[in-house]
């Protein structure tokens, strides 16, 4: 069970307090209607799934309730950093 640092609570808490929420920095397009089917499918489904540094979202669902971003190594599962939603990609 991972230890996750919530950037809002500024505390490390057990993973069972958190819900993983998928890859980070995939913003919903501002004008979906203008997009091609290919580009829309890319937004919906294509994920980087890297071996190594992964930008991802978590929600402190059994805590403050906030969504935030993290960089985690998918080979070691170790967090490099967590940061608030809306902050630039690390």
């Amino acid at each position: 069970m991972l230890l996750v640092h919530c950037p809002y609570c500024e505390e490390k808490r057990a993973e069972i307090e958190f819900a993983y929420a998928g890859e980070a920095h995939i913003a919903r397009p501002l004008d979906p209607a203008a997009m091609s089917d290919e580009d829309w499918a890319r937004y919906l489904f294509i994920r980087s799934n890297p071996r190594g540094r992964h930008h991802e979202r978590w929600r402190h669902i059994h805590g403050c309730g906030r969504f935030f971003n993290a960089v985690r190594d998918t080979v070691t599962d170790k967090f490099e950093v967590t940061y608030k939603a809306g902050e630039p990609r690390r």
Partner: protein
Amino acid sequence: MTRFSAFSLFAKAFGGHQSWPEQWPDASPKPAYDAIIVGAGGHGLGAAYYLAKKYGITNVAVIEKGWLGGGNTGRNTTIIRSNYLYDESANLYDHALKLWDGLSQELNYNTMYSKRGVMMLAHNVHDVQSFKRHIHANRLNGVDNEWLSAEQAKEYCPPLSISPSARYPVLGAALQRRGGTARHDTVAWGYARAAAALGVDIIQNCAVTGIRRGGDGAVLGVETERGFIASKRVGVSAAGHSSVIMQMAGLDFPLESYPLQALVSEPVKPVFPCVVMSNTVHAYMSQSDKGELVIGAGTDQYVSYSQRGALHIVEHTLAAICEIFPIFRRMRMLRTWGGIVDVTPDRSPILGKTPVPGLYVNCGWGTGGFKATPGAADLLAYTMAKDEPHPINAPYNLDRFRTGRLIDEAAAAAVAH
């Protein structure tokens, strides 16, 4: 190839088993092949075998970064069934099931396919509706699947608790009698030996580091730790690492890789006659030929390649097992392990051509790849040999994510209302 039989076993015994040959030679790469398969799991080795056996392409290499059969083939809970809802799925998995039947004889290698029956438990009205839908669809598709009352389910699997006061009482079950299990390692070994006998090179400890493409975009071959190997046909069958390989060809795939844990108990005398699955309570179990209770756990929630899962997943799984089979509460967990499963948005595989000419893919099997092994292998071989998908795997294309024609069995199982 020395033919395996009781007779050969008997004969070799008198020579102290000194004269058994290697089951497959450890090949070194040649400069070029007619076809290359990346990934020596059951799917990849099987594809090489069928390329050679059915489609006459014998100048084939299977390239593996570790040891053959060391990935999900050897890490899964070996459940085999084909009672899927949609026509596309039923066709795919039943193609595999038909190949499982007789695979030992075809490969001359005992893969221990055991038709023990796979029973899926219904715990609420919604489950009943969903299973009935499956059963009716399966019947009209010629796939066996039958409804059992709770009492019939208990008769089929005596350790099952059908107490009406259970938190999730058993209301009935769907049973596929042709479903069952097989011995996972022997599937990889059997295909490896049979493929090698037909001239396929199995190249282990040789990681693919790149996919070389020509000016027209088509595949020219693969870069590996042991140099470039040329081939105009490359099939990727790399399970959890598929998206990494596809990215080498410049292709982004709708895949994510998650840790999936499984566990076994200490071996006990035969006590559990079939496979039981419960999606509502989240557990599934069978007993291996060796006597271990083989139990599947859920995936961890985050993307990972670590093959390392969390304890709370195991806790939840065993709580679920003890709920359905309370007599096993005193059994003991012997070993847990993790695999990496590649999951697509609709949890169905991608099996066919890719936008890169000469590059073929077989991935996205999620938690259900083992049961499809012979079928997926055969269909990948067909697609590579003909440069077009077989009608069975045609729906499993990449384009469905653009057009919206998803094959979403999990969505069809839906959610409670």
